[in-house]
């Protein structure tokens, strides 16, 4: 008869490693696996754009305006005679770069603000929270258009615009998480042993609030790509002649009846990337928060 509940040091089972867990999250469901594959493909395209693109995306040609797809130009050409496929391929660079940089920066600043507000509370919290509330009152896109209109377009301006628009969301989540983690006995235990406040924040708070922030970040990569495309479409995003999926659509609009392929191509690219990041983001959120899991 085996007798259990004994407190002799049994060797606890090893936890699955980070990569095992990541693989399970990213490849666990068929649709997530598809989305992950899609993202990998697009990143690959963006990195190797010079190799993959058949033409220079900026090279204009007066004799090849608004051509339909052909052997020479798979997706045809636009109103300046530029190869649409090459522009799409190079456009992925801008779109993905925007898509990644803004959420990462926003997560960084937003988390910092949120943790400071949540941990210290009082007047600091009230100040930060009110500013965040103010920013949250405007839809992200509207805010982005507003700032872009004031500052003008351009790569870093747009990054700054989307980052500012995203900060409140991260700050909100970080603040709420900090408030709950702050109550955990292990934080109190750290205070009781005399650990300094910055160390408590870095070692005990931040690692324990990262999960929802990472999930949020993935979901917002999709939003950032979408917003960048919208701004470029409106002409206040990536500046022509540099290609971005948004301004490819914009350019395509003028010659819609000449060749619809710029719009179709860029539309499909945007849809695929946004959908993929949303799917992966959902999977990460489900994995990190069992209560929303199916």
């Amino acid at each position, binding site marked *: 008869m085996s007798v259990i509940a004994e*407190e002799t*040091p049994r*060797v*606890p089972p090893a936890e699955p490693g980070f990569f095992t867990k990541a693989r399970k999250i990213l490849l666990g469901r068929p649709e997530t696996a598809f989305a992950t594959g899609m993202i990998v493909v697009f990143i690959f395209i963006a990195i190797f754009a010079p190799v993959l693109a058949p033409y220079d995306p900026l090279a204009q040609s007066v004799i090849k305006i608004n051509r339909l797809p052909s052997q020479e130009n798979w997706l045809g050409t636009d109103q300046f005679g530029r190869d649409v496929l090459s522009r799409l391929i190079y456009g992925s660079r801008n779109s993905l770069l925007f898509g990644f940089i803004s959420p990462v920066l926003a997560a960084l600043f937003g988390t910092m603000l949120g943790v400071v507000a949540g941990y210290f509370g009082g007047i600091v919290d009230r100040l930060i929270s009110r500013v965040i509330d103010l920013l949250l009152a405007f839809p992200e896109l509207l805010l982005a258009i507003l700032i872009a209109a004031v500052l003008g377009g351009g790569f870093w301006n747009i990054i700054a615009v989307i980052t500012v628009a995203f900060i409140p969301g991260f700050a909100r989540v970080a603040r709420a998480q900090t408030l709950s983690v702050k109550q955990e*006995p292990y934080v109190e235990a750290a205070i009781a*042993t*005399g*650990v300094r406040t910055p160390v408590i924040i870095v070692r005990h708070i931040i690692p324990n609030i990262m999960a929802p922030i990472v999930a949020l970040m993935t979901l917002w990569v999709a939003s950032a790509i979408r917003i960048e495309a919208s701004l470029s479409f409106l002409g206040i995003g990536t500046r022509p002649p540099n290609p971005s999926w948004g301004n490819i659509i914009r350019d395509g609009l003028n010659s819609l009846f000449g060749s619809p392929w710029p719009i179709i191509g860029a539309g499909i690219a945007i849809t695929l990337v946004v959908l993929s990041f949303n799917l992966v983001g959902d999977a990460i959120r489900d994995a990190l928060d069992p209560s929303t899991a199916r």
Partner: protein
Amino acid sequence: MSAMSNFAETVVPNADVEPVLSVRDLKTSFLTSKGWVEIVKGISFDIGPRETLAVVGESGSGKSVTALSIMRLLDPEMSRVDGSVKLAGRELLKLSPGEMRNIRGRQMGMIFQEAMTSLNPLQTVGQQIAEVLSIHGLYSGQAALKEAERLLDRVRIPGAASRLKDYPHSLSGGMRQRVMIAMALACKPKLLIADEPTTALDVTIQAQILQLIKQLQQEEGMGVLFITHDMGVVAEVADRTVVMLQGKAVEADSTEVIFERAENPYTRALIAAVPKLGQGSQKGPQHFPILDRKTGTIVTGRERPDTVRHDAEPVLRVKDLTKRFDIPGGLFSGPSGRVHAVEKVSFDLRAGETLSLVGESGCGKSTTGRAIMRLIEPQSGEVSIEGTDIRALDKERMRDMRRHIQMIFQDPYASLNPRINIGEAIAEPFLTHKLGTRQQAREKAMDLLERVGLSPDMASRFPAQFSGGQRQRICIARALSLEPKVIVADESVSALDVSIKAQVVNLMMDLQEQFGLSYLFISHDMAVVERISHQVAVMYLGEIVEKGPVAAVFGNPQHPYTKRLMAAVPVPDPARRKQLRPVSNDEVKSPIRPVDYVPPQRDYREISPGHIVQAWGDDWKV
């Protein structure tokens, strides 16, 4: 397992009477990522009318799953129940969900541990009871409310008529559990299933609820299936007992037999580990007897030497410590009231001594501990460690002072950062105070792991990989890494299973001997307190009402509250079960006072050397 076949005979209460509930070879499996896992591995028992059967076991033994299987409350997609469950001769496992719904509530009442989450916060208790009655078609409309009132009266809720309109949040934990019982009894069930119904309650309230269940059982003539982990409660309520371990019944017999001459070593270990009040010796704190599971003999442990430094000055001196919390009023008005959480608490703690603060929830014992640690700032009073008043220290010097006073928390699952491995967690305080190099910190952590009974090569593992008891050992190791003089242990063993609890308490005593530690032991568990302490202080509504050496206070309690507390502790002696004790409906009063409240001047008198009692006012006059 030849013993299994015998159970069927021993568990039949009375061959002539048909059992209310008859369970045969109940097996429950859950679908996990590793396929079907059997949780309950063949349990059989009978419950007769007016009979109470206790299913007892430690966490993970499958006792709650047994109850859920009988009620068929498990998700049919994720679980599988085999065997036979007959309620008054009717096979339950073959019924359709619709028929089963009719049985539940109607013929089978249930009460659970969490009365708050079992009640709907948006409905009055009257509505909820009336709903049960009308669902089962017994009463409707006004008649149902009338019956609800009668039921509240039956469960001894004072002023039942006015309570009908109360919402669950305005009732105390004990009152909510009474409402749950009233709902369970609404349709006069043949069987009441009680799953840890008193675990979340204070000890005096627990005594009331247990008495109430016993009385109602007599009046209604129903069978009771009582699930618990507490052998003391088993002795109080159960006619017969099934001891579960790892999904199997290791022993089943009448409660008397189990307590007197249990054969299974696990049962004997469980009983041996139950703290019994009145066993404290005059020689000071002594180890819990631990049953050696291999040989089946009980090891009492050597006698502990006196660890108290009687000659020296106290290491911790607390004088007139007061902490009040304001209850915020409106936006522009001041506080609407004040919680007098700790009111002029004073005591001394000498080196190598254990002082326990006991009392029920809300009495201010944890607040006292946290105020001493300066995790919250007390309003007034003095806390000095070796003569230094720590309340006067600035932030920087307070940080240094924290080396000398450390804390162990209640919840072993939450008091370790899940993302830091335990070696680093133990080394962190050492490095924070720059007591040595990283290498030395690592060695220290290894050494401490060994001292608390774990293995040094576990240092790189994460908290999630340890059990509750092991985690509490890790927390103790972390507290010890600074070589403190005083450790504040706030309900540190309350969340642990009984056998684990005994081992951790023994460990704490060993460490006291080795390091000359002083403990401020905060607990609601009188029996553990009696074991571990030299001195005890009883707290009630923020004040110490009685304090002194354990033998004096527990042996000769003076204050009415101390007496009430002592009387409420479950006694692991089945012979006392038959006595029905009067059910008092007293609730622990609230420490919330008006803003202008001035606490009364208290007088204390000394009964015997060191044994001090607060003079009590008229509200304690019987």
